[in-house]
């Protein structure tokens, strides 16, 4: 076989400059001039407080799991930042389409922590609370939520509403067809949806480089006609800039965006996992140096907006708030067995009602 093409050019992986946005370095020092809005103390301190609360809520969930008070739980340790940012920037009537590691965002969206505990405690009512508004509940089958997000965004467009759907997923999820098909639709139809890929470097035991041969996950947008960007996922300033712009743009009818937030899963995949089986300690140690809470704390300190006293008070406050949620969760009585039957259809068919009676009677006869 003979060909004359210069393979050098033809065969490179195309990647033009996917932007990477960062404002606060790992040491809490600005890496470039900070945007104006950073001068708003409430916003910046708010981000900090929200992350601290999410972390405490997370810690408590793991503790409860260890003592048999909760089921398998996926910790969000280290990736609190994207959630507090989108949770702050979305309008109440926007719709969040989360995956299962979005505790920090859900709290800011108004979901009750006790509901989140209830969900992981094995109770469907944990996804029923008023705090969710129209937000979708946790999504367990990876990437399937991406389809919902573009459907919701389509509904906004059909109805001419100025609302935005924000959907999150992990790095692993970007390999699944659901994500890619949804992205393609969003690009074709210019839908008001933001895809936030929380790249925490691992999909259970599978590292980022085994998920995808492309240099960035953001560039999955390229093939779908969707603009894409990488952002430091532990830097609330960069996240605010990027997520904020993407939401604003979507709201204006200018279409979708893929954001790859680079962060790290500091904990095990879930409480059922043991990450030391597959992950070098070194890597985790290094990742701790990048983590978002300390980083922002340092910056707030320097800015003069945060003191050890405030820290102590905050820790106390979040502990007590979390404890209240724990108590509410633990004291939630079991549902009626009828609950297991009554929500399959708007009106429960007679056959199901009979099966419920059977369950109550402890009888197997039809």
């Amino acid at each position, binding site marked *: 076989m003979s060909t004359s093409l210069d393979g050098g050019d033809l065969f490179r992986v195309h990647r033009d400059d996917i932007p990477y946005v960062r404002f606060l370095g790992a040491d809490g020092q600005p890496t470039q001039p900070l945007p104006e809005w950073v001068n708003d103390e409430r916003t910046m301190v708010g981000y900090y407080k929200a992350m601290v609360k999410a972390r405490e809520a997370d810690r408590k969930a793991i503790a409860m799991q260890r003592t048999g008070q909760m089921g398998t739980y996926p910790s969000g340790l280290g990736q609190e930042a994207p959630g507090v940012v989108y949770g702050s920037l979305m309008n109440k009537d926007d*719709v969040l*389409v989360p995956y299962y590691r979005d505790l920090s965002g859900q709290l800011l969206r108004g979901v009750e922590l006790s509901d989140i505990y209830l969900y992981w405690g094995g109770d*469907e*009512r944990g*996804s*029923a609370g008023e705090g*969710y508004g*129209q937000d*979708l*509940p946790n999504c367990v*089958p990876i990437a*399937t939520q*991406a*389809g*919902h*997000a*573009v*459907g*919701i*965004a*389509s*509904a*906004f*467009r*059909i*109805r001419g509403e100025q609302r935005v759907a924000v959907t999150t997923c992990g790095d692993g999820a970007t390999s699944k*067809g*659901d994500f890619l*098909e*949804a992205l*393609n*639709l969003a690009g*074709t139809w210019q839908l008001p949806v933001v895809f936030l890929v929380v790249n925490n470097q691992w999909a259970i035991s599978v590292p980022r480089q085994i998920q995808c041969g492309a240099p960035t996950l953001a560039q999955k947008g390229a093939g779908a006609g969707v603009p894409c960007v990488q952002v430091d996922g532990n830097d609330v300033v960069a996240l605010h800039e990027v997520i904020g712009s993407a939401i604003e743009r979507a709201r204006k009818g200018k279409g979708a965006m893929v954001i790859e937030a680079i962060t790290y899963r500091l904990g095990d995949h879930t409480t059922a996992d043991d990450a030391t089986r597959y992950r070098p300690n070194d890597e985790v140690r290094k990742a701790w140096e990048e983590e978002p809470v300390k980083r922002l704390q340092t910056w707030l300190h320097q800015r003069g907006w945060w003191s050890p006293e405030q820290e102590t008070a905050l820790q106390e406050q979040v502990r007590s708030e979390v404890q209240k949620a724990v108590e509410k969760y633990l004291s939630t009585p079991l549902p009626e067995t009828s*609950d297991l039957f009554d*929500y*399959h*259809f*708007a009106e429960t*068919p*007679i*056959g*199901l009602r009979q099966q419920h009676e059977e369950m109550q009677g402890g009888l197997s006869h*039809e």
Partner: protein
Amino acid sequence: MSEAAEKKTLIEAVNLALDHAMEEDRDVVVLGEDVGTNGGVFRATQGLKDKYGLRRVMDTPLAETLIAGMTVGMSTQGMKPVAEIQFMGFIFACMEQLIGHAARMRNRTRGRLTCPMVVRAPFGGGIHAPEHHSESTEALFAHIPGLRVVIPSSPVRAYGLLRSAIENPDPVIFLEPKRIYRVQKQVLPDSDFRLPLDTCFTLREGSDLTLVTWGACVRECQEVVRQLAEEGISVELIDVATIKPLDMDTILASVRKTGRCVIVHEAARSFGVGAEIAARVSTDLFHELHAPVERVAGYDITMPYYRMEKHYLPDENRIRQACLQAFGN
């Protein structure tokens, strides 16, 4: 001429039901592959794009998983999307969304979010179609808690059931027997006409045997019922129509009366919908049955390509034999 013009085929009834539903409710939208300008490969959505515009009649990219997923998403917003899957053979990519989400959203959120959606798909063989264009796998959906499965067998029932399916607050898999898309014309009732989604239709009353079927097979069954009537055997013919939730009461009441039951379906026999009906009838009417319940169904093989497909499909002869057998012949 104008009389004839009012008579509609099954596919035209589907088209009209969609049209009326969209006219009456702005939340009803249609999506799928080729549903726009082309009006669907069977013309189920013909004319809708011109009438209701691109926003409500959406040609999607070629991606069934996406179609199912976005339909779920839209419906959580209270829209009433009607998705078309071009052929049932291509519905399998929707399974994760249908099983994992459409069927569960209400239960998962204890009623906070619901999926008032319809997924339509032409199904079944007998039209000399290529591979993958002749499947009937309604049993896969029937087994899933939270889904409704509906199958019309005439233009009138197509209209009434589809209107009800679209208005129903839960996800409905609406399977259209394409073999009879155009074989029968009926005058449709007016646009208020609805049919219940949880009741079998007794198409003919009889006293000696209950023949239970649905979809395209209704035609062959009707013919057999006619033949047997001539021979002095009175058959009660039931069109199940709403496979799930299954209206066992109607079927049981009939077999209680007749003492004999034959079930006919096109899908592969084993683990098909007929198995559930046969099991229920056999167990619940253990003491009333005069003869074992028989099933006439597709064989447990992949639907053959079209040269041989007629060997697969239950025909009048097989149905007739099974009925006669119930009388000890």
